[in-house]
């Protein structure tokens, strides 16, 4: 008994020592906090800082820089963080094209990068890297889930996405699980704001459902115009067009739309309830899926810091890979390519009691879902 207490006291004092002499950790966050896409970056930044604040760890310094959604600027900021600020870890990028510009250069310099949002396929496959951890998703994941859902529920889906790599990946991911007939396959212009032509085609195609991937303002415009046009073929899509950052702008037009995500505000676990409450209290808005992913990224880092020194790269990478943290997504672990294995849900847009639009889980599309590129990753 005494031995036990002694061990406990010893452990406690070790813990206290560990805190008292903890080394400072510098985390560089490059994200988008200006321009049209700022909403996503603001959520990522706020949720990350919330998690750091809740941890009470005073030795963590988060350096936030705005990339204005420009790849060149992001590369420049990454150089600054590595060469001038000497950061230990990096995170924050929202967009796949910026991630493709920054991540290979950063990981090649032996800096660990954790992605809170983007998951382009090359980084999951052939170009995977021991210093790259994706805490969000591989880009195809949400689309695959929607493909599964539409495959189970519809026979003739019309699919559309912008004409750029993430758009093509989206439709590829969808078709990986959707085996029915396609009523049409349309690529729109990136940044397009008027979808009358496409909606007319949908109306004429005789489709029984629509799958679309149009992030940001494109999705807002499409959904509003679609509902206004009087076409009532059901809409489905990944969470990006129905996340908390855009729902207020779409308004009631979004009600009832099914969308896929790895997280939802109503996901039933203790960590998530606490996170949603704290986020609402701090920032007076409901968190988005980006906020949730960023919160998890921060907590993953905190869990690894408790186990290993960030200066000991091998030990720290191992600690990250163990993913020994309480995720707001419930269960979470890393695949061989250091991308998530997680559940993906189908959500429906509903009105909360206070009248605000939000998402509610209606079913689970995949359990313990990895990605299609892990085999190509030689690590």
């Amino acid at each position, binding site marked *: 008994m005494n031995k036990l207490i002694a061990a406990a006291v010893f452990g406690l004092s070790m813990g206290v020592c560990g805190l008292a002499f903890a080394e400072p950790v510098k985390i560089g966050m490059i994200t988008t906090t*200006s321009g049209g896409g700022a909403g996503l970056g603001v959520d990522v930044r706020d949720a990350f800082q919330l998690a750091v604040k809740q941890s009470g760890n005073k030795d963590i310094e988060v350096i936030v820089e705005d990339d204005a959604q420009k*790849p060149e600027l992001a590369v*420049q900021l990454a150089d600054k963080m590595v*060469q001038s600020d000497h950061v230990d870890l990096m995170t924050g990028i929202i967009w796949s*094209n910026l991630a493709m*510009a920054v991540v*290979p250069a950063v990981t090649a310099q032996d800096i660990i990068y954790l992605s809170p949002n983007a998951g382009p396929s090359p980084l999951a496959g052939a170009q995977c890297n021991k210093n790259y951890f994706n805490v969000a998703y591989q880009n195809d994941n949400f689309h695959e889930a929607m493909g599964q859902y539409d495959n189970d529920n519809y026979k003739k889906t019309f699919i559309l996405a912008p004409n*750029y*790599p*993430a758009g093509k990946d989206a439709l590829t991911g969808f078709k990986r699980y959707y085996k029915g007939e396609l009523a049409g396959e349309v690529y729109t212009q990136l940044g397009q704001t008027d979808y009358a032509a496409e909606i007319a085609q949908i109306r004429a195609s005789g489709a029984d459902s629509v799958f679309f991937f149009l992030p940001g303002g494109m999705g807002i415009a499409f959904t509003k115009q679609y509902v206004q046009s009087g076409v009532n073929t059901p809409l489905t899509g990944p969470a990006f067009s129905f996340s908390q950052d855009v729902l207020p702008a779409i308004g009631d037009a979004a009600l009832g739309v099914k969308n896929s995500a790895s997280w939802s505000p109503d996901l039933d676990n203790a960590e998530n309830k606490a996170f949603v409450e704290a986020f609402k209290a701090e920032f007076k808005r409901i968190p988005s899926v980006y906020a949730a992913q960023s919160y998890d990224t921060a907590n993953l880092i905190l869990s690894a810091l408790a186990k290993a020194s960030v200066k000991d790269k091998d030990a720290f990478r191992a600690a990250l890979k163990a993913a020994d943290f309480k995720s707001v997504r419930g269960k979470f672990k890393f695949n061989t390519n250091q991308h998530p294995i997680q559940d993906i849900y189908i959500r429906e847009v509903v009105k909360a009691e206070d009248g605000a639009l939000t998402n509610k889980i209606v079913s689970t599309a995949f359990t313990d879902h990895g990605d299609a590129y892990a085999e190509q990753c030689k690590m």
Partner: protein
Amino acid sequence: MRGRETIIGIALMALLLVVPAVASQAGEPFYVTLATRIAILALAATGLNIALGLGGLVSFGHAAFFGVGGYVAGILAAHAMSMEPILLGIPGTKQMLVIWLVALAAGGLLALAIGAISLRTTGVYFIMITLAFAQMVYYFAVSWPAYGGEDGLPILLRNQFPGVNTLKPLPFFLICYVLLAAGLAFFALLRGSRFGAALQASRQNDTRLAAVGIAPYRVRLAAFVISGAITALAGALFADLNRFVSPSMLSWQMSGELIVLIILGGVGRLSGPVVGAIVYVVLEYVLGGITERWQLFLGLVLLVVVLFARGGLIGLVAGRARHG
């Protein structure tokens, strides 16, 4: 007044050389990167300055040449890495010297095609048609899947130069600096040459030029081609600096930024692009460090310069000699 401008120019070029050297010694390689960025943007703007400053051709589409230069570097490097021939058995390459030549040629050819049509118009029409051509190239790059489209094309390892370790910041900076100096020397020579005189005359008076037997269209076209080629060279360097090329190098905002650099420094002045690039990059860096709303203050600073410092910043200190 020209004398003071020359002194300022030489002082700034010296400063641009000393700061990175010191920063490199002091273990602050990021300032070397920043200086490299300045040198490359100044070279791109020097290219534009030939068309815009000497010839009065306000091109709002020089991002097309900048981006094409970048894509030359990216595509050649990608093929060299993958060992696949580009076309008809022609291999890719990682040699900067070859890449530069191809970039110059590609930029010049594109400028020839765009200029041949655009130079039939003048004034605002010219501004807008160059913008339209650049937009065409931009949309092509965004939607063409072979080289990454919107995601862009990474260059995993910086391209090589004989006898120089280009992976280190300082040697790569020196390469860019030498090319900038060469570009500026070329600009000065061109301005003083008979061709330069004809080009500047074409800006002021078409008919007089035609009267002495020089076709203004051909002078302008030649200047536009040279201008596009130099900007493309800078684009190739920019891609190597970032180890990445994407359609945003082709965007109209990029064209706008190049114009901003020139006006900020002083139109048609030899050292205008250098001053403009130094001020712009330093402003972006300093303001970005202070406030999230740096673009607002950048806009305000630009407004003040254009409204109250006519002839650019050089014009402020060296007197308003040439512009107008």
